[in-house]
């Protein structure tokens, strides 16, 4: 009877305690930080799965979506800026391709 009481009190105390952990956003995970920047260190095999889970969680979180949107807009702008005009020989190739297609379709008509 005494043993039962002691066990019950012990289990009660253990389950009664609030866990002393701080919720870390997946995007702030130390593993993600470790893989960023120039001095990134390789992951251990055991860290691969948590890293992948955090990457996916981060990507689908509100913060991850916002970051992806910002990156998407920036990439589109960069692509437009780099290639809004033909440079060097690339226009010659474009002329060749366009003329060849045009002549081919003309030849099928006449």
């Amino acid at each position: 009877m005494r043993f039962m009481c002691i066990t019950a009190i012990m289990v009660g105390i253990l389950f009664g305690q609030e866990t002393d952990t701080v919720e870390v956003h997946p995007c702030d995970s130390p593993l993600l930080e470790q893989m960023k920047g120039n001095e990134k260190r390789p992951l251990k095999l055991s860290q691969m799965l948590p890293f992948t889970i955090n990457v996916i969680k981060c990507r689908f979180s509100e913060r991850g979506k916002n970051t992806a949107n910002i990156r998407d807009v920036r990439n589109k702008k960069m692509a437009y800026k780099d290639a809004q005009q033909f440079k060097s020989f690339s226009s010659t190739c474009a002329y060749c391709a366009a003329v060849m297609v045009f002549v081919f379709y003309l030849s099928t008509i006449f």
Partner: protein
Amino acid sequence: MLRMNQKLFPILMIFFTALNGQSKLHIQLGSGYYEPNLAVLNEAFGDSSFFSTNILLNFTATYQVYYNTRVGLGSWNSFHRLKDSFNRRFTYRAFILETFYYPREAIEFNFLLAPMWNSCDISIGIENTNTNWSDLLSTFGNTGTFTFKSTAIMNSSWFGFTSSIGIRYYIKSSLGLDLRIGFTKNFYNKEKWKYEGETIIGPGIKLDALPLLRLGVVFVR
């Protein structure tokens, strides 16, 4: 030797820097419509369908090597499979030089020039019996007749050329839709087929100048 290396090294460095600096790999999966005249072939097979005759399945991988230029490889395939009978497969392989520009953000006009190396395989799976094989197996205590499978193939390859102009809309910076119109020119010769190393006469199909319409989904990395 030293002088050559002194020139070669900076050239290689510039080349690899240009490649790495603009690393953009474009993978395209799509479909194409073309109009070859395969009447002789389809008559011989006794079967034809719109899908096997006019539809091409496409995989293309290109790499951006300059602001407006991509180079890469493309493959278009047309299949015709008959159950327990012949299989026919056209493979059009293109070595792509593609230039492009953006008239507006997210919209790209592209122009493609590509020499091609194309081929056609006609094959059939054959089930054979061989008395020597059956005799050998019977000496081990096996009874009955045993068959083995083999494949007979005739094939031909020819040079070609393709050109197209197209428009691409980027839904995201890494995902786009691509529509193209163009043509392929094939130098097919029915007298240059091979069967078991021997030159034979193949089907008189008409592939010389074909209009081509392509639609694809592009993934950019």
